[in-house]
């Protein structure tokens, strides 16, 4: 059963199109990554799904309810954590969660129990009786997730839940999201690829309001190998090193980069699907140079977009 159905969604802000004909569905229990650079239309899509404003054209349904016709029903089925969440700074964490429980229609008798459960699952015990205004960003994000969990909604929409956190906190939040998956349908918005690829079964990539790709993280990764690049740090004469690296079969191009104390950085462009790190290492060492470092260059999200968008246009 499809928990979320989006058909030909289009949204204009004045003359500017924020979303152009976007369609996708999310199955019950699925964890979907919603990926895109800033301003791609992620938050616009999520705002439409949470009935903050209606689409210009198209239709969206959550748990079978149309966002235009039955917004209250839709909201009852969604736990939403907006981007850059801000919560009443003058309230205490547990009071705030009780307030949300009440708003979500949790029966009075169950409120205390549900609040305690949400606090436990988001590990907020230490700050449960502290003012929200005094919390660190990491705790605040967790309160954001805890409030989304109130009323036990079947759909969770988390918009950039790890933004502004340090690496340790990011790992903690990621684990938390993994633990929430299962029965629930989750949409996780992010502009960071590894964050969604580790948690999500399927990833949607959106750029400038248009759907660019829908695939599993594994398949996306494979498609990205076409842009595979290596970074090598080698000490020795520049032109000779370049020559010995470009001599290896499978190397498309070698560009010398900046100087570091231990040697020169070379950016090596590879043929698609080529796994020739060992050959390159042998060629460098065989040429009598010192290989200080050799690794795959991280493909940035921007490059993925450039890649996917150009692919689209060629097609």
């Amino acid at each position, binding site marked *: 059963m499809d928990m979320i159905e989006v058909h030909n969604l289009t949204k204009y802000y*004045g003359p500017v199109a924020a979303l152009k004909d976007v369609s996708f569905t999310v199955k019950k229990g699925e964890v979907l990554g919603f990926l895109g650079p800033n301003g791609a239309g992620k938050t616009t899509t999520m705002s439409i799904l949470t009935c903050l404003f209606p689409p210009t054209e198209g239709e969206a349904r959550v748990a079978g309810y149309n966002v235009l016709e039955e917004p*209250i029903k839709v909201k009852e089925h969604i736990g939403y954590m*907006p981007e850059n969440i801000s919560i009443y700074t*003058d309230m205490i964490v547990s009071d705030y969660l009780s307030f949300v429980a009440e*708003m979500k229609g949790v029966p009075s008798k169950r409120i205390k129990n549900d609040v305690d459960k949400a606090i436990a699952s988001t590990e907020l015990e230490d700050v449960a009786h502290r003012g929200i205004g005094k919390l660190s960003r990491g705790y605040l994000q967790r309160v954001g997730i805890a409030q989304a969990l109130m009323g036990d909604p079947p759909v969770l929409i988390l918009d950039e839940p790890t933004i502004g956190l340090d690496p340790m906190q990011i790992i903690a939040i990621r684990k938390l999201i993994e633990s929430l998956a299962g029965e629930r349908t989750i949409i996780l918005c992010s502009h960071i690829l590894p964050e969604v690829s580790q948690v999500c079964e399927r990833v949607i990539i959106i750029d400038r309001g248009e759907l660019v790709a829908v695939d599993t993280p594994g398949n996306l990764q494979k498609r990205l190998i076409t842009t595979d690049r290596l970074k090598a740090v080698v000490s020795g004469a520049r032109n000779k090193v370049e020559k010995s690296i470009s001599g290896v079969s499978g190397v498309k191009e070698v560009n010398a980069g900046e100087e570091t104390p231990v040697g020169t950085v070379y950016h090596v462009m590879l043929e698609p699907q080529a796994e020739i790190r060992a050959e390159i290492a042998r060629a460098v060492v065989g040429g009598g140079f010192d290989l200080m470092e050799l690794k795959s260059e991280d493909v940035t999200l921007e490059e993925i977009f450039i890649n996917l968008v150009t692919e689209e246009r060629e097609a």
Partner: protein
Amino acid sequence: MRNIWAIYKKEMRSYFISSIAYVILFIFSLISGYFFFTIAATYSTMSLQFGQMPHYQELLNIEEFVVRPLFSNLGVVMLFLIPMLTMRLIAEEKGSGTLKLLVSYPVRDGEVLVAKYLAALSMLLAMMLLTFPVPLFLFAYGSPELGPLLSNYLGLFLMGGAFISLGMFASSITERQVVASVLTFGALILFWVINWAQNLTELNLGIILEDMSIFTHFENFTKGVIITHDVVYYVLFTAFFMFLAYTALQSRSWRSK
């Protein structure tokens, strides 16, 4: 209903935690106490002076010389204090971004507004309740009529409720509390003095201006007269600005089209 109650509790808690409630209640009690003291003391001196003159003694009565001027003044105090009470209602949530989360819960915009209106109205009631020493003293040392006193309280309540609805509207069209406060204050003053121009215009427009003035309708209540026309004015005034506030809150859904 449950949503209204939940938001109402949140708003009331916020009034007291942020100390707005304490400051406003304290200042209002101080000012109303001072007004009552000076007005009552003046009345008492007058009573002594005119006590020997039976002709004047007939003219002296508590309703006309204490209750009426006191409540007229309290009405003006409300004009200053209610914008402070209402400015945060929506503007604060808009400015800090909490509104986005609030409307993501299964709640209607109308429920949000009603809950917030009721919270501000409760503050108004609390202010009025704190004037309890006034009737206590009057009944202890004089023999005022209960009717006019009640009509004064009713008038103050209806007028305060109307002030709140205007404040709510001002708060719903901006993200800045100060802007909301200045707008409310300015609009209330305009509604107060709008009838001053009645002699400068033709008769029909003059009548309309007179009828639009927010204090004209308070006048009868202070005299101890409750007229349906005045009650309807305040109820319509309140409904009109609550509707505008509702439209402003809803505008997020069509403004971006």
